[in-house]
Every structure is written in C-alpha cells, then in structure tokens.
C-alpha cells in the first residue's frame, strides 16, 4: 500500500480562539519550559550586546561608558555612506556574496545528490570524508596554495599557459580576474562542507518514496527530479533565505588574506574597509554602525525574499 507522509511544515498555523488558548498553552507547557533557558540566554548574551551596540548612535568614550556617552544620531552612518568608496564597496560586497551563493549552492546540491545516489557505499564514505577537508584549512594556507597555482612567475597554471604559447596572467593582482579567483576558491573550499548539510537532508527523505518510485519504474533522473529535489527544497529555501539575510557578509577572512592594493577596486568590501578605517583606528562606533547598516539591508532582503519564497516554492521562514 502506498504511504503518505506529510511533513509538519505543510500544516498551516492554526488560528487559536481565546477560549482554547489556555488549553493549547497547557498542552505546550513543556515546550515553553524547555525553551526558557535558551530564552534567558538570548536576552543576556544576544540582546545584551545589542543594547551596548547603541554606541553606533553615540560618540563612545570609555571613561563615560555606554550610557554616559553623548548621542550623535546618524552621524557615523553618514560618515561611511558619504565616504569616497561607498558605492564601490557595496557593489563588490554584493557581487561576491551573490556570486558565491548562485554558483556555490547548485554545485553543493549536485554533489550531495551524487553522493546520495551512488551504490558504492564505501566509496561514498570515503569521498564524503575527504570532500569537506578544505573547509578546515585557513585562508592563509589557501592563499599559499593559490599562489602556487596562480602566480604569474612560477604558478602551475601560468606555466601551462606559457607552454601553450600564451602570456602569463596575474590572477591575483588583476582586477579582471580577481573576482573569479575569490568566488571560485571559496566554492572550492566550502563545497564539501555544504554538501554535508544537503546530504543529511537527503537522508531524511523516506526511502519508501524511492521504493514506490522504483516500483513505478522511474529512471534515476526522474527520481532526483520528483523526490530528491522536492525533498530537500525546504532546506535549500531556508539556506538561501538565511544567506540573503547576510548578503552584506562577503567573507572578510578570505578577502583580507587574498586582496592587495592592485585589486582594491574589485576586492575591497565593506568589512575590509571597516577594518582599515574603524577597528584599527579606535572607531568602534563606526564599526558598530556599519553592523547595523548591514542588518537593516539584510532585513529588507530577507522579508522580500521570504514573501517570494512563500509564493514560488511554498516554503518560508516566517
């Protein structure tokens, strides 16, 4: 007999009438109780610093403390929005962020599906374990690797180009190629890690569905199209929405290690600018203000994307 499996995410929120409210609250009392420690934690350790973050609107003086420092309103925001390179910074940040998302996610999903589908289980375990190793390498190490591959002097790739009769390309110092270096090297490093997540999602899909499909004579491609992909759609949507919420986080650690002055025009992002201008110059208020700015943009994007996701994919966070 066929089995119907209904994920709870498809159950719409039930409107509660006041009379039933107490009953429902009593039913869920354990849930609230369990969430209590986390709630307390959030208030202290997440909202606490947010309270301190009001220094973004103040001229913070350590001797006066957070409360005693004078208000300056949006002055810090103006400073960096009006700064010389602001548009360029935003543009670069968005390009990196979106590039990594648009190119990286499909690759990770495909890898996960491939791992999920393969019959050679020992091989699968092996590949699974190996594929996520680059995630553990710091960008400092990756930079060394990239130098070996891409250096115009004696990099492997340039040696191949030269032997084929071409001119060596300075991948790391040319604005034309730097963006690709950043995006592709990030995908290179992080694909394996993302794959873990998607693979776990695939494993949660009931095998009964696959059995039924086999009985119906489905080809592998059909299996993937009609079972695997829809099965992990919630995860994909969730991760996409979350990443859009952090759209202005383009990967400070990576860029900081890889970039250099010749590629500032394409490589300088919001965080690297803040690092040079704010963190090292004692301008904490500025750095905090930029954090708020990022959050505001992310919020807008998240709300818009959430609505779109609800309409298109039937999935949403909110």
């Amino acid at each position, binding site marked *: 007999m066929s089995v119907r*499996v*209904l*994920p*709870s*995410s498809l*159950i*719409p929120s039930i409107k509660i009438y006041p009379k039933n409210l107490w009953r429902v609250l009593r*039913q*869920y*009392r*354990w*849930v609230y109780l*369990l969430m209590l420690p*986390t709630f307390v*934690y*959030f208030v202290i350790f997440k*909202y606490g*610093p*947010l309270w*301190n*973050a009001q220094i973004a609107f103040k001229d913070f003086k350590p001797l006066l403390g957070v409360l005693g420092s004078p208000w300056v309103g949006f002055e810090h925001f103006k400073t960096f929005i009006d700064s010389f390179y602001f548009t360029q910074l935003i543009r670069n940040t968005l390009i990196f962020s979106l590039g990594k998302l648009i190119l990286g996610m499909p690759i990770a999903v495909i890898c996960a599906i*491939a791992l999920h*589908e*393969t019959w*050679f289980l020992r*091989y699968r375990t092996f*590949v699974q374990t*190996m594929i*996520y*190793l*680059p*995630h*553990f*390498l710091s960008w*400092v*190490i990756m930079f060394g*690797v990239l130098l*070996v*591959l891409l250096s115009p002097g004696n990099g*492997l790739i340039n040696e191949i180009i030269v032997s084929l009769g071409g001119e060596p390309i300075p991948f790391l110092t040319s604005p034309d190629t730097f963006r690709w270096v950043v995006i592709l090297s990030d995908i290179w490093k992080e*694909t*394996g890690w993302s794959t873990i997540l998607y693979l*776990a*999602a695939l*494993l*949660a899909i009931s*095998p*009964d569905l696959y059995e039924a499909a086999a009985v119906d004579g489905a*080809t592998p*491609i059909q299996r993937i199209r009609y079972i695997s992909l829809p099965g992990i759609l*919630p*995860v994909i949507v969730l991760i996409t929405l*979350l990443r859009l919420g952090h759209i202005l986080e383009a990967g400070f650690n990576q860029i900081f290690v890889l970039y250099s002055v010749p590629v500032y025009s394409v490589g300088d992002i919001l965080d690297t600018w803040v690092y040079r201008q704010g*963190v090292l110059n004692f301008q*904490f208020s500025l750095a*905090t203000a930029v*954090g*708020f700015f990022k959050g505001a943009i992310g*919020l807008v994007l998240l709300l818009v994307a959430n609505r779109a996701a609800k309409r298109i994919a039937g999935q949403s966070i*909110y």
Partner: protein
Amino acid sequence: MHTRTRDTVVFQIGIAIFLTIMLFIILIPFWRVIVTAVIPLDIYTRQGVPFFLSPTKWTFEAFKQLLTHSMFPRAALNSVIITVLGTAISLFLTVPLAYGLSIRSLPGRKVIMAFVLIIYLFSPGLIPVYLLITGMKLTNNYLAIILPPAVSVFNTLVMMGFFEGLPEELKESARLDGANELQVLIRIILPLSKPILLTIGLFYAVFYWNEFFTPILYLNDNDLIPLPVLLRNILISASFNEYVEYNAFSSSSLESLKSAGVFITMLPMLLIYPWIQRYFTKGTLVGGVKG
C-alpha cells in the same frame, strides 16, 4: 531494490566519475598541505615545495617540533575542553529552541521567530560583546569564549527545518497515546534526528575547535590558550619580528611548520566525521510510519 536497467548502470558510472573529479579538484590544496608538512628542509630551501613529492624523501620533523613543544599538550587539552564544553552548551540551548520553532501551531511562534531573526540580522560586533563579558567579569574564563556565540541562529533554523520535515503522523499518534510534548520530543523526535543532531553538533564542535580570536581577546593567562592560538604564535614570529636574531625552530622551514600545524588541528575533526557517519543511515524512518 533498484532495478538494474542499462540507464541505471550508465548513471552510476557517471556519478562515480563526477565524484572522482570533484574529489581530485577539491583535494588539491589538501594534498599541498600534506606535501609541505613533510618536506625536508633542504629540499624546501632549494626549490620550495614541489608539486609531487618523492616518496623516499619525507620527514616528520615539523610535526615533531610542534608536538614536542612544551606548551602543546596543555594547549591541546584546552582546546578539547573548550570544544566539548562548548558543543554541549550549544546543543543544550539550540535543540529546544529549534524544536519549539518547528511546531507551527505553537502560540507565539511568530514572535519567537522574529526575536531570533533580529539577532541573526543585527550582529552587535566586537566591542559591545566585549563590554558585556568584561562587565560580567568573565575575563580569563572559557565561558567568555563559549557563551557569546553559543547559539548560532543559522544552526538553529537548519535544525528547525529538519524537525519540521519529520512526519506529523508520528507526533500525532504519540499524542493520541497520551504523551505530553516533552515525551514526544524525547521519545519520538530525538531518536529520529540523529543525523541532524550529529551534523549540527559537528558544526559547533568545529567552530569551537578553530576559535582563535576570542581566546586572544579574553584570555590573559598563558596556561589557558587553546591550540590555534599556540600554533598562530609559533607561526607569526617571523612576520612581525624584525629582531630576527634568534630562530627558535631551525630544523624545519616556516612553511612546513604552518602546514604541519594545520594538519594537526584538522586531525581530530577528520577522525570524528567518519565515526559520526555510522549514524547517518539511509532510512531512519523505516518502521515508523507503515500502516
């Protein structure tokens, strides 16, 4: 099982090839790290790191120097403490929240979700957190490293997504049998959530294991520093120190030490994942829903 049509065989071979290619591409940096870590000093100084390493010319000198560093055992132990403690605290705080959020009919769920998302979007930054931690007198304490990042909203929502994906029938049948929500969580949900618990647990563990900036910021006592900080100290000396009249390590090149350090830091995580994988079995729901 699957019928062995010709399409399927072709498909399987295609997949295998694809995976092998991915494997090779992705492992190039890793391979280079290994080669660099074991390369003898004289070869390195002569020609840098060659792409392919001759199997007869290895040395574990770099590893030896790091592992026999007087502070290494203590730093490694500190890292283990931070990681275990951190992962435990993180999971303890994350699971109930994720579960609560996964119940669509929970009153106030939208408020809680907004509560959580605001934190996700607006990260206060270094100084506000620092002011809070020092205000709580948590300097020189591992909790300063663990508590601020203890709950990752990303991880929470991913876990929530998984809980949501579990069949509602299971919970319903348990409720009909008279179980309250706590029992539903413990008896039904958690056993079925091994993959996600282990995955998120791994995510947290890796995060804590690699933390090095917050330890630098909050720990003053040298006995407390974790492994990444120790390795970083070992490796940045030449970068900033113009007073290079003394070279503490002379039988390995700096590059080798860097790579050996990376490898050592990676090793525990490398070993844990295959062990966890045993629990990632296909069909964790078999036997739960039929009928």
